[in-house]
């Protein structure tokens, strides 16, 4: 793999505003309900009053060895050698939804046409786009992924994984390196409650 693109996410900075999810929908013209290339979930644990909650912004992780591609009968899903981005060719997709079962992260989405669509790291815009795009790093004017661009708390970043590692804390970098999962996302350890309006205020003040 000449380069591997992916994500960096800091749940401590995420305020759960859904701006990333909405920006993604707008960028790719995906307005169908229930079709979310990126979504934000609030996850809680414990019992009242000792509840801890965190926000998670989730999309395709552009896995190193994607299980979705393995099960796809039509060979419509490709792990690109050039930039490690996993794309889906909707002209080849037959809409069997097998990839929906195989993906451990719920990334494949199906619109009313029944064909698979998902995050393409903004290689291009629209469902199924980006298949023939040049490598992200070789594009003349690459699109800055809308999710990261619009993130209010600067919780989400996109780039080549080695560059994202420079941003990561030691703990997050180690966790990423030691992880058995072959997903391309670095996640900062969560250190408190997710009521982080302070981060938003901080960012707005900047």
């Amino acid at each position, binding site marked *: 793999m000449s380069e591997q693109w992916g994500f960096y996410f800091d*749940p401590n900075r995420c305020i759960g505003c859904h701006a990333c999810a909405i920006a993604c929908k707008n960028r790719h013209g995906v307005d169908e309900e229930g079709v979310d290339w990126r979504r934000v979930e609030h*996850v809680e*644990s*414990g019992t009242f009053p000792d509840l801890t909650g*965190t926000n998670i912004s989730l999309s395709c992780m552009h896995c190193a060895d994607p299980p979705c591609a393995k099960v796809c009968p039509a060979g419509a899903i490709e792990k690109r050698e050039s930039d490690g981005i996993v794309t889906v060719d909707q002209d080849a997709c037959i809409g*069997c*939804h097998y990839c929906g*079962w*195989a993906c451990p992260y719920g990334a494949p989405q199906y619109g009313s046409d029944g064909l698979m669509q998902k995050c393409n790291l903004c290689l291009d815009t629209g469902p199924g786009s980006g298949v023939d795009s040049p490598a992200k790093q070789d594009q003349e004017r690459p699109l800055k992924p809308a999710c990261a661009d619009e993130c209010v708390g600067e919780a989400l970043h996109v780039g080549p994984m080695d560059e994202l590692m420079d941003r990561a804390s030691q703990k997050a970098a180690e966790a990423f390196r030691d992880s058995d999962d072959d997903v391309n996302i670095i996640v900062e*350890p969560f250190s408190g409650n997710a009521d982080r309006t302070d981060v938003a205020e901080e960012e707005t003040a900047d």
Partner: protein
Amino acid sequence: MDATGLLWLERGHWGVTTAVYLFFAALGGGAYLTGVAAYALSETGKRRSHVTLARWAFLVALVAVSIAGIAILSHLADPLAGLLFPVTLTNFESWITRGTWILVSLGVFAAVQTLWFCFGELGRDSEGGSAFVRRIAGRLGLDGVADQIADRIRPSGSGFWVVAVLGLVPALGTVYTGFELAAVETVPLWYHPTVLPGLFLASGVAAGIATALALTVAFDEANSRLVLVFTSAVGATLLVSVGLLWLLWTSLGNTPAGIESASKLTEGALYIPVVVLLAGIVVSLVGSPLLAWIGYVRSGPVMTGWVVRVSLVVSLVVGVVATFLIRYVVLLAAVKEPLVAVGV
């Protein structure tokens, strides 16, 4: 609010249509197997009731494969691409690609055997219910042509057996229906690469034998001994299915999705199908061989007594329904392993 620190994922990718597809594909394999076995016991076609069972079995295999094909095509967003599978399905690592080839090959073998058993040497003198295809062809004036084609393409002696045995490869290959689900690592109910394929194969064979046998007993003169032998095979394959169901249940595990699947199977909407499934298997497993035995003891070589015959048909049909419900509940109780939120 779920306060477990887990993020549950959507799982409604497949529904009843897929259960129908998985069921009929395996039933088709079981029926083909029944046809070959019945003919093997027929002393090269001399025992008419064996040939009748084989004729029904190959017909059932052909119809089942066709239904499976229609079900899978209707489930696809692009059915035309499904029809063009030799060009469109290029990833042989996928069980859908492998399965499509298996299903289509089985369909070809079942069609050829149906032609040979309904027309030509083995079909010409057929009578009773199993001759209905012949009668329809006769009404359309096509029986003569079909007889000629059947005789011309039917190899003699060992050639016939080579074709019959080659057809067993895709028939047993319908085990793929289990692998299709067992390949999904995210669903603990499915991720049993030996148990689930074994369960789908055993219950598919049971369904195939039971369907062909029920049609034979209902519409034709049935040889009591033949019925006894094949109902015993239904009982044996259902028994294996029960064992494998038990293994599947006990190996569900204590993961969140495993626990969730277990509660789906024992509570709520799937509770009644599960009860019907289990009751159906027990009724058919015990009832079918028992009724066949009663018929064998009471009748002469040909099974008589409408009460026994009707009860036997009902018992076999109940078994077939139960084997469909296995796929239905296994599909609808599937839960994907949730994500664990880091640090929560």
